Each structure stands twice: as C-alpha cells, then as structure tokens.
C-alpha cells in the first residue's frame, strides 16, 4: 500500500475514524488499533513477512527485558550480542546473502578458482532495514541505561511497527516515540491541519517532482551509452531531485499522517540541497539514519576523538556502513566512500561544524560565499548520486566518462516541450523551499498568509497541480527497497 495510492486514501480515513471516534480517549484501544492497522498495512505488501516483523519485535522486546534484568555487565553483553547477531543475521540473510556469495565467487574467479556458488531467490522483506534499526536502537538504549524496557508488548510493538514509519522511516528512537505511545493523546486542531498540509506537500514532492523526474532518469540511465554529455548531466540532476522529492516526500506524508494521529515523528530532512558543505548536508539529509549511525556506531567507535588515523578510520566506517545499509551493491559502497572523501577534509581541518545555522538567515539572497558553497556541495552530491543510481560501479564510471565529451555543450536531448511543466515545477519547488527554509516543511504558510482564503486557494491550486502535472504511474518509493 503506497502512500500515494487509492488504497492508502481509503485505509487512512478508516484508521483515523476508528482511532479518534471508536477508541476515543481510551489509550489501550487506540494503541491496539494502531497495532492492528500497522500489521494490516504491512500485510498488504506481503503477509508472509508479517511473521518476521512480529518475531523481530518479540526478539528485541525479550532481549531488552533480559538486559535490564541482568545484574552482571557480561550477561547484559551476552543478551545484547544475541539481539544484535539475530537482528543483523536476518538483515544479512535477506539483504546481503547473494551479494556476499557472488562477491566471494568473483574474488575466487580472479585468483583462478571457480567455486560452485549457491545463490537464492530471496525476496527482500519491505522495511526490514528500518524496523530492524528501530528494535536495535531500543536494545542499545536499554544497554546504555537510557531507556527502561517496556512490559506492555502492545505499546512496544506499536513503537516498532507504527505504520507511518514502518516501511521507510524515519528511524525512530525509543526515547522519542515510546513516551508518546504511552501517553494519552488528544486531538489538536492546529496539529491536524498542519499534518494535512504536510501530507499535501509530500504528495506534491512525490507525484509531481519525483515521479516526473523518474521518467527521464530511467530513460537516461538505462540508455546512457546513447546520450550526449549534456543529457547525462541533466539525468544526474533529475535524479538528485527525484531522490529528494521521493524520500522527503515520503517522510512528509509519514510525519503528516502521524501528526493527524497525535504522534510527532522525528524530522528526516531539512532542506539538504541548501547546505554549504558536505558536513551540513549530512546533518540535513536522512537525519534519522545519520543520527542513528552517529549515536550507535560513530560515537562508540570513538567518534572524532583521538588521532588523525582514528578520525579517518571512523569516518570511513560510518560512511561505508551507511552506503552498505542502502543495499547490497558496490555502487552504494562507492557512494558512501565518496561521501567519506568529501567529508574528511572538513573533519581534519575542524570545519565540519562551521555551518550549523540556517543559510542566509533573515535574508532573501545568500552571500556570494554561501552561494558558492551551496553550488559546490550540490555539485558534489549530484556527482555521488550517479554511483547511487547506476546499476554497477563500471556503469557509473562509464556514465561519468561520457559526460566529459564534446557533446557536453550540446542542447540536452531529453528536453522537449513535454519537459517544460516539470522544469517550471522544479524552479517553483526550489524557490518555495528556499523561501521557507526556516520552516519544518515548505508549505508551512499559516504565519505568512493570515487570510484563510489565500491559504485555501494555495492548497486547492496545489491539489490541482498535483492532479494535472503529477505522474500517477504508481512508482514505488525508492527507499522501500532498502
């Protein structure tokens, strides 16, 4: 069930009615409805993997209790290890088994051995990377005495399986979500309106920006050998907007839906393409994953403390793991490595935290220095996206090689009169996002237009823009595959 599907448009109002009108102020009933609807939502993808989700939930629930009950540090460690090994074992099997087997065979081939490899037709359970990380963060937090384990299995299950974030995040923390699940929730008019607005903006990002870009991106990347250099540049640019529109659009719909149910989720994006350096980009892109890796991997490894070698090692580890988390392909690892290379000079020169504020705050235009910083960061990001989008590293290198040809200065072949509406929407999108960069999302306009008439006209215009310019080809969200 995609967020941009008729199925979800029917499912969500039913949940909303049951949640607020049938369960009313009964917290237990509300959580029960959330759990059942989350399992139904998940079963719509593939009911067989529902059991895996329930098992994973139970595993972390049980090991969490055991860690807390254990008096000795070593016993705690053993339970933590059991949880981590089983969680990563499932993730490794479903997501990485074939990759490791094939990579091993390739290495063997290169030294003259020809092993019989045994790959499996494994279907990747949707959202496995997300709910595994939810559960692991809970266990880690108990181990680090940040969270007390919950005895109420329903409440804990809602934390892991809550449908707005189940298949593509944001990756929540027990410290943030569990207290909300356990507290009585009251309907808040202004929050609900805000949620609706964020859903509308998310739909615009997904259906108009991402899915229209996807048409060109697929055409260009799938036939990159036949494209001019300028078309390939355009393809990479379109992909940058596609992935941003797709993933941040998904996050907006998730956050908006959740807000309608009275639960606030972690923010996942904060205008990443207006970053002045790569460090800032990573504080603004997929924030819930970045902070997860920071808290549970980077800091335990020593973070940026210690000598240069430690800093380099830890940076590479976190970026490579982050790349690998996205999928079992060398392209993601190359993408992670490239970002590590971008990031290291900033870290080593202690400039990785120099852009903590909002760019050009209080001004309409950025300074020349800020504009250059944003342009360079955006260019580097787009360059790295080529690896992320390509099928193989060799394809990515060949793609980049073809950009730098005499045809780089020619008019891009993909542009025609059909591209004009998308181009106009992209320009509008960038302008709106820029003007609203101090807001949680770009359609937060209630403080700008006090007149309800104006606001409603904007919403209606946006709804019709989505309808007429949107691509309703039912493109799944990119991050569902991760």
């Amino acid at each position: 069930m995609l967020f941009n599907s008729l199925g979800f448009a029917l499912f969500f109002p039913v949940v909303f009615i049951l949640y607020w009108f049938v369960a009313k102020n009964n917290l237990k009933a509300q959580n029960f409805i959330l759990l059942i609807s989350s399992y139904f939502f998940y079963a719509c993808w593939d009911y067989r993997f529902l059991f895996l989700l329930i098992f994973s939930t139970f595993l972390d629930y049980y090991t969490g209790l055991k860690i807390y009950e254990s008096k000795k540090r070593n016993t705690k460690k053993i339970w933590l290890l059991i949880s981590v090994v089983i969680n990563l074992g499932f993730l490794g099997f479903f997501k990485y088994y074939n990759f490791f087997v094939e990579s091993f065979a390739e290495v063997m081939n290169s030294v003259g051995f020809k092993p019989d490899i045994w790959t499996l037709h494994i279907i990747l359970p949707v959202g496995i990377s997300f709910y595994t990380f939810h559960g692991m963060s809970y266990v880690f937090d108990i181990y680090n005495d940040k969270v007390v384990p919950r005895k109420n299995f329903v409440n804990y299950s809602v934390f892991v399986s809550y449908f707005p974030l189940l298949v593509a995040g944001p990756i929540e923390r027990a410290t943030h979500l569990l207290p909300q699940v356990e507290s009585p929730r009251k309907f808040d008019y202004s929050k609900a309106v805000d949620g609706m607005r964020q859903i509308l903006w998310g739909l615009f990002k997904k259906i108009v920006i991402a899915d229209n870009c996807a048409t060109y991106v697929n055409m260009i990347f799938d036939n990159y050998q036949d494209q001019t250099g300028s078309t390939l540049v355009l393809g990479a640019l379109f992909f940058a907007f596609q992935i941003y529109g797709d993933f941040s659009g998904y996050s907006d719909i998730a956050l908006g839906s959740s807000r309608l149910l009275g639960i606030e989720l972690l923010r996942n994006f904060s205008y990443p393409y207006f970053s002045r350096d790569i460090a800032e980009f990573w504080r603004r892109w997929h924030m819930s994953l970045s902070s997860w890796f920071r808290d549970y991997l980077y800091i335990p490894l020593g973070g940026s403390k210690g000598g240069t070698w430690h800093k380099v090692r830890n940076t590479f580890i976190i970026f490579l793991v982050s790349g690998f988390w996205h999928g079992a392909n060398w392209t993601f690892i190359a993408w992670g490595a490239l970002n590590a290379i971008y990031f290291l000079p900033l870290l080593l020169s202690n400039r990785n935290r120099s852009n903590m504020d909002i760019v050009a705050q209080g001004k309409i235009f950025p300074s020349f220095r800020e504009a250059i910083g944003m342009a360079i960061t955006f260019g580097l990001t787009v360059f790295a996206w080529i690896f992320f989008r390509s099928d193989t590293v060799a394809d990515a290198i060949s793609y980049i090689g073809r950009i730098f040809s005499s045809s780089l200065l020619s008019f891009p072949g993909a542009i025609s009169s059909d591209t004009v509406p998308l181009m106009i929407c992209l320009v509008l999108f960038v302008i709106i996002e820029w003007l609203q960069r101090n807001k949680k999302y770009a359609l937060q306009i209630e403080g700008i237009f006090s007149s309800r008439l104006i606001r409603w006209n904007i919403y209606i215009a946006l709804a019709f823009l989505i309808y007429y310019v949107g691509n309703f080809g039912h493109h799944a969200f990119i991050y569902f595959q991760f």
Partner: protein
Amino acid sequence: MRKFLREFGIFLLIILLLAAVINYRFGKHYYNHYELQYREIVEHKKKIDCIILGTSHGTHGIRPETLDSLGLGFYNFAMNGSSPEFYWNWYTNIFAPNHPKPKYCLWATDWFLFDTVWLWRQYEQDSEYFPDSVFYANLKSPDFKRQSLVLNRIPFTKYKSYKDLPNLFRRYDESQFIISKYKDGFLPYWPQKVEKFKDRYNNKLKDYFTISTRQQQIFEKLVQRMKDDGIQLIFVNIPEYGSQKKDYEKITTFQYLDSFARKNNIPFLNYNLEKRTAISDDKELFADWGHLNDKGSWEFSMILRRDLSSIMR
C-alpha cells in the same frame, strides 16, 4: 475535532465542485461523433445492412449516404487509430450482442493495419462514449481493465493532462471537422486545421511501419468470426495522395491482404493499386496525403458505389 472535520469537508466539497465544473466543461468541449456511432449500435435508428470499419481514412473517406442508393443501409463505424484488436473487442462486446447481424462488412484496410503505433486506439479508452448498458456490461467482464473503463468514462479523469487544461477556456474547435455534415458515422475532414502543416501532402510515412503478428492473428480471428456470423466481408483501400502505384506494390501488408483475401474469397478493392483512379493525383480532393476532404470523399464514394454494385447483388 468538529471544526477540523467541518473544514476538511468544506475543502473536499470545493475540490469536488471544481472537479464537477471541469468535468462538465470537458464533456461539452469535445464533439464526439464516436458517441453517436456507439449509440447507433444500441438504438438501431437506421436499418444497417453493411457496416464500415477502418481508421480515420475510412471515417472521413466513405459516405454511407452515397452508398445507400444501392438499396442497402450503410453505417460508418470507422474510428481513427483503431486496430484489429480494437475491432475484435468492439465486435464481440458491443456490436454482436446489441445489433442484428448485417449482411456485409466493408473494412477499410490500410497499409498500417497491423502497426500498433499508428493504430493506438484502446478499447477501454472509448468507455466515455459507451451507452450505459454497454458500459456496465463491460465493467463485469474480466477481459477489460475495470479501472481504465471507469477513469475513461469520466471526462475529468479522462482529460487529465495539463495539455487539456486550455480547452476549459476555449470553444470547441470546429476547424477540423465539418460537424454540420455528420451523417451515419461519416464526418468530413475540414482542411482548415491541417493547412497549417507544411508537409501534409508528403506521403513518405508508409516507408516506416511495422507488422504486429498479434494484430494479424486477431484480424484473421475477427474475419473468421464475422464469416461464421454470416457476414460477407469486403476489403477496401482508400485512395491516398502523393505516391505512385509502384510505391504500393512493395508494401508487405498489401501482399498479405491480397493473398488472405483470395484464400478466403473476400473481394479486395485497392484504390492505390489495381483500382487506382485519377483521385489519387488530384490534390484538391485531399485534406492531406491520407485523408480525403469533403469533396474527395464524395467523389470516392461514387466510385465505390459503382464497384460495390457488382459485388452486393
């Protein structure tokens, strides 16, 4: 909560109201002679002895009114972009269940008859024009995409491209067809619109077409079905402008049609080959290289009437 639901309800109502206005405007904007063609199938306003099938070349090229003087009732069901697959669905799901069997079927078989790019028309796309009984019967059929049938039925959902939006504020563009002369499925092509096209008489397109074996198989299946229903088929190829006889001789579709017609004892009147007339060399009779204009359709229908008189005895 009440305030939220009330406002959300009003918002939805405004959206629905606007959608209804757009729906009304689009429904009015497009002059659809297709609807009249479909309606005739269920209303039986005319006694039809011969149905005319084909593409736009047929719609704008054959006048039933002229042929009626043969003493038989003709009706033009040719529709632009319609392939054998389209007609298979049309015949088996709409025509055969709703209309008495005619004696004859005159099929305007073009050289692009089996090209799925040239012949783009999908059956479900026409649901907007289906009579209600046909639409609901088709909805129950497992052969068709239900969603597609529904979405194409409603002008608001059918014309959902931004390119359709300017039509909301325009009057119907009558420069393409002479609506006042619509009769029995025939609609004369008005050259005002096509006059803008510089190369409209350049007949080079037939060098680029493909033959889909699937369409060929469906064509053969439909011919057989009609024969089984006691319908006598006649193939006709409508004159085109700008090419010589020798250009048509190498067209493989014609070679296939020729042999298929001979094998099945079907008359094949090819007005670009053996039955070529002076019409093919007279630019004044064409709106473009492939479509006869008002005058051209009249002249051609007179010739066709003469040739059919010896077949339809």
